[in-house]
């Protein structure tokens, strides 16, 4: 039983040294080669003074160097702190200071209170004499990494994960997708975020193979690598899937007999993209993981096999245990009519928020991490989710999931994107309001959209207010930022009140 991902690499380097391990757009290595890279860079970092418990901040290059760097840090029992590749200097400095970093690894230097190491040099330290005794592998309870959230408001939170947590999440992934040893997975999503990082860990723990790519924008390169290494799986975020469809048309369909599964996550997939993907890859398992950075990959759904399960997020994964609680945190019998807040326990749960004892006390109760996601377990044993408490719109006593309205609206010809929020209503309390962004040459016709939605949704779900907007606020991975829409609405209400006054 290995206690860390880096220990798994060392083990695989002994048992399957010549097996293809990892590639990026320029390099590819076997497990033995990968271990030599990790070993060599760990030795270099140790010479620089990096040791157990030290924090090393790494700006993600979405390549083999970044992956090697992360595991070299962990081999020293130091802590890997990845930041996103497009992070502003101010954010990186904030993180460097928050963790009191020993070292900063990136493509370019930064005026920071710690030394800089060039990311481009990482692979040059590969050591062909790498052995298995010079480093003691980290203990399961030691901290492996700190992942900082990319919240749009307030200070970002550091999520501290031990090696036990990291390997448990990786096992959740392996179990969830029924990953085979000969799996070759393309990961064109950032290694600085839990989503991409955990799929990479899952494959490495399993002794499978990974192809790293910087997004899908150079899609020809993506397909070239898929052909060259005979990729059997893909990992995408919804925004990357949409971009791939726009760039390459239906080319993904050429891989219908090659792709065993595709994982999607990080944000809800627009219904039209989901349906299109199902039609292009009818025999491929199409997974959507539910989870958070705090409690990773806890529930999984194959939406190609369970198309009719509305609001379903699937079955709990290997290490996940679920409970449903009320506002006070008491366990309840949750049902569709009376859903509870989903709480999750298991080895994948984070050690805690970094240096935030109060926040930890508020978030973790008896080992369970409580979410704001209103959910219940169906009679089929699967978990169903109505949405985040903050997002669910209660209109006239009925609960409306904004995603359902958005999914329906996205089927209207000419709508490029949309988002739904609650607005005040004098009698109903709240009602849904829809913001839509139209495609370049499409006309905005709110009456036609209203009629379209009326034909598809129950009356109380149909938004009476439909407004055009240039662009919906979304995060890098396509997650709708409803708070920004609410802020736009609040600003308009304020201006309106001032004009009236």
């Amino acid at each position: 039983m290995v206690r860390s991902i880096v220990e798994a690499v060392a083990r695989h380097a002994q048992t399957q040294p010549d097996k293809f391990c990892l590639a990026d757009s320029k390099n590819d290595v076997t497990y033995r080669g990968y271990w030599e890279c990790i070993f060599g860079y760990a030795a270099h970092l140790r010479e620089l003074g990096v040791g157990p418990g030290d924090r090393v901040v790494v700006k993600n290059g979405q390549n083999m160097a970044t992956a090697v760097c992360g595991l070299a840090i962990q081999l020293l029992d130091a802590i890997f702190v990845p930041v996103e590749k497009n992070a502003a200097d101010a954010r990186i400095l904030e993180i460097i200071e928050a963790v009191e970093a020993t070292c900063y690894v990136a493509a370019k230097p930064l005026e920071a209170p710690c030394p800089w190491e060039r990311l481009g040099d990482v692979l040059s330290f590969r050591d062909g004499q790498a052995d298995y005794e010079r480093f003691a592998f980290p203990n399961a309870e030691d901290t492996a990494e700190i992942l900082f959230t990319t919240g749009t408001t307030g200070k970002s939170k550091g999520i501290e994960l031990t090696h036990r947590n990291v390997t448990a999440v990786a096992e959740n992934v392996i179990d969830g997708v029924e990953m085979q040893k000969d799996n070759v997975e393309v990961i064109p999503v950032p290694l600085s975020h839990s989503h991409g990082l955990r799929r990479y860990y899952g494959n490495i723990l399993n002794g499978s193979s990974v192809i790293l790519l910087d997004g899908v924008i150079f899609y020809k390169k993506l397909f070239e690598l898929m052909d060259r290494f005979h990729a059997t799986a893909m990992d995408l975020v919804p925004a990357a899937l949409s971009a791939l469809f726009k760039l390459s048309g239906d080319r993904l369909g050429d891989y219908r007999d090659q792709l065993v599964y595709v994982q999607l996550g990080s944000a809800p997939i627009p219904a039209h993209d989901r349906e299109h993907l199902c039609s292009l890859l009818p025999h491929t398992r199409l997974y959507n993981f539910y989870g958070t950075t705090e409690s990773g990959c806890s529930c999984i759904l194959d939406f190609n096999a369970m198309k009719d399960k509305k609001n379903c997020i699937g079955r709990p994964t290997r290490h996940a245990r679920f409970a449903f609680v009320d506002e006070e945190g008491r366990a309840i019998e949750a049902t569709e009519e009376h859903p509870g807040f989903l709480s999750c326990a298991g080895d994948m749960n984070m050690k805690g928020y970094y240096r935030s004892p109060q926040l930890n006390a508020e978030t973790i109760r008896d080992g369970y991490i409580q979410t704001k996601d209103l959910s219940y377990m169906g009679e089929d044993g699967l978990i169903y989710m109505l949405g985040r408490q903050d997002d669910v719109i209660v209109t006239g006593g009925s609960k409306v999931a904004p995603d359902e309205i958005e999914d329906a609206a996205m089927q209207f010809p000419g709508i490029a994107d949309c988002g739904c929020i609650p607005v005040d209503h004098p009698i109903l309390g709240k009602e849904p309001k829809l913001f839509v962004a139209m495609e370049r040459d499409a006309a905005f016709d709110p009456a036609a959209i209203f009629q379209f939605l009326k034909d598809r949704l129950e009356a109380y779900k149909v938004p009476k207010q439909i407004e055009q907007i240039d662009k919906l606020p979304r995060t890098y991975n396509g997650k709708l930022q409803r708070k920004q829409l609410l802020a736009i609405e609040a600003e308009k209400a304020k201006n309106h009140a001032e004009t009236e006054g």
Partner: protein
Amino acid sequence: MEELLNVLKRALPKVDWETDMALVDDGVIDSVDVVSVISEITDEYDIEIPSEEMEPENFNSVEAIYEMIQRLKED
């Protein structure tokens, strides 16, 4: 070319557009940066960049971007 240089500097001020000749290959600009570049040049030159042109070599230097724009203007 001078005009394009100004457009690119506006899109990504920190990039050394004048001397770097392997911007994508060397990881100086990433996929997110490429999207910013595309957004600026499609607005500025009123062109659409077809998916066939989405190759790293078309974004490796200011000269490569310039040549791509000229090619698309001619089409």
